[in-house]
């Protein structure tokens, strides 16, 4: 029992340290303009709080232990009015003046690119809008160019969600029937994890997404590829998977551009094989994980709208997995 709990403690400590080092979903490893200013604010507040705590503590020890004499009336008045009224009012006022303008940046307009993100239960509909009005639908992953401010137009389908990529910026609620806006400006290329930050039902904790910040030229190339139709399946198993996809009516809910699948209920799968995660940040993009997901949706994501295709033979699920993984 003792060894057990010690192991558990060690694991907990390791998890804590590792999660802090990883930084893919941490406000302590800021990689966006807005996250950096929030981090600065947090440091100012924390250091300020520590200094104040030490000052008050020292003063308390001084008047109760070191020099516990009766104070002159004048001294006491200065201490109470000065330390209890004037000082906190000025300090809080200064902190307000410093912190309030920080709220402007995340509301700044985009510099050309806008991404419409609609929160569904429990995934993200993503739609890139270019300055010329062209729309490029995608899902469950957000790609942003480094160095420019991209606007995010946020909506929700049925319940309230909240959009949050801790390493890039603050969070913004996504409210059904009410459009909200936030912009993000990554400063270093990398992959950061976003997470729904407002309880939205059974699989709220399983509603995540990867955010990929790319150098502008890489981003332009990726966007061009994303705008294309799906590649036709290249291998025999993939072609078999495509047939099963059509036979089982997957296209009733999902779109694979360039095929007959034009459903709008679930995520767009045109380039699902090139994403960094499957099922909104939960699984890896491998043929095996696709097969697992399609066969056991409700076990992996409780109460999800997509039915489990557990009646399909293993070979069919495997073929579907190969087909979808090949949709690069």
């Amino acid at each position, binding site marked *: 029992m003792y060894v057990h709990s010690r192991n558990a403690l060690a694991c907990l400590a390791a998890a804590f340290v590792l999660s802090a080092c990883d930084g893919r979903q941490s406000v302590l490893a800021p990689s966006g303009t807005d996250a950096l200013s929030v981090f600065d604010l947090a440091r100012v507040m924390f250091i300020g709080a520590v200094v104040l705590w030490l000052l008050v503590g020292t003063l308390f020890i001084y008047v109760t232990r070191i020099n516990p004499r009766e104070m002159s009336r004048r001294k006491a008045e200065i201490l109470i009015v000065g330390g209890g*009224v004037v000082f906190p009012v000025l300090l809080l*006022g200064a902190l307000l003046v410093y912190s*309030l*303008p920080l709220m*402007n940046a995340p*509301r700044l307009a985009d510099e050309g690119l806008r991404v419409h993100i609609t929160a569904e239960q429990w995934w993200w509909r993503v739609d890139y809008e270019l300055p010329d009005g062209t729309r490029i639908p995608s899902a469950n992953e957000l790609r942003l160019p480094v160095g420019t401010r991209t606007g995010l137009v946020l909506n929700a389908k049925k319940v309230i969600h909240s959009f949050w990529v801790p390493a890039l910026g603050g969070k913004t609620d996504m409210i059904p029937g009410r459009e909200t*806006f936030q912009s993000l400006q990554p400063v270093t290329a990398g992959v950061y994890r976003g997470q729904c930050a407002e309880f939205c039902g059974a699989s709220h904790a399983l509603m995540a997404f990867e955010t990929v910040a790319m150098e502008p030229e890489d981003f332009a190339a990726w966007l061009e590829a994303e705008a294309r139709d799906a590649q036709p399946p290249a291998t025999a198993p993939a072609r078999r998977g495509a047939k099963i996809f059509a036979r089982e009516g997957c296209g009733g809910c999902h779109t694979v551009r360039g095929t007959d699948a034009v459903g709008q209920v679930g995520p767009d799968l045109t380039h699902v094989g090139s994403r960094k995660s499957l099922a909104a940040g939960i699984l890896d993009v491998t043929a095996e994980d696709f097969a697992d997901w399609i066969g056991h949706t409700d076990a992996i994501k409780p109460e999800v709208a997509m039915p489990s295709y557990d009646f399909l033979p293993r070979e069919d699920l495997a073929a579907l997995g190969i087909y979808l993984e090949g949709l690069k």
Partner: protein
Amino acid sequence: MTQITEKQEAREFHAEATSVWRITFGPLLWAVHFVVSYSATAVVCAKGGDVGVLRLGIGIGTFLALAGIAWLGWRAWQQWDTLRNRGWENDTGTSQDRHQFLGHAAFLLAAISFIGVVYVALPPLLIESCQ
């Protein structure tokens, strides 16, 4: 003799009625500033009005409210008369004590109202959009 003093007391007690009213004026200005600022912001943001004009308006309203509260505070400070008469307690029930106590209360309420108005005004003056 006693009767005269009682009459005089009653008259002075009555005279303080206006200053009982006066202690509410600071918080009243704060409340008006608060309601007007918040409702104007809500209306302008919901109907898509000019945020610049709104912020200018809140700035002018804040200046007026602060000037009014500062004047009330100054009047109350004089009535409290704490520099000449350095007692924090006014608890003897004489007309002078009542007079000073009301000044004291009005001054403290003016001070908190001043701070309240400044803190209410800071967000619209420092944040440039409705979002």
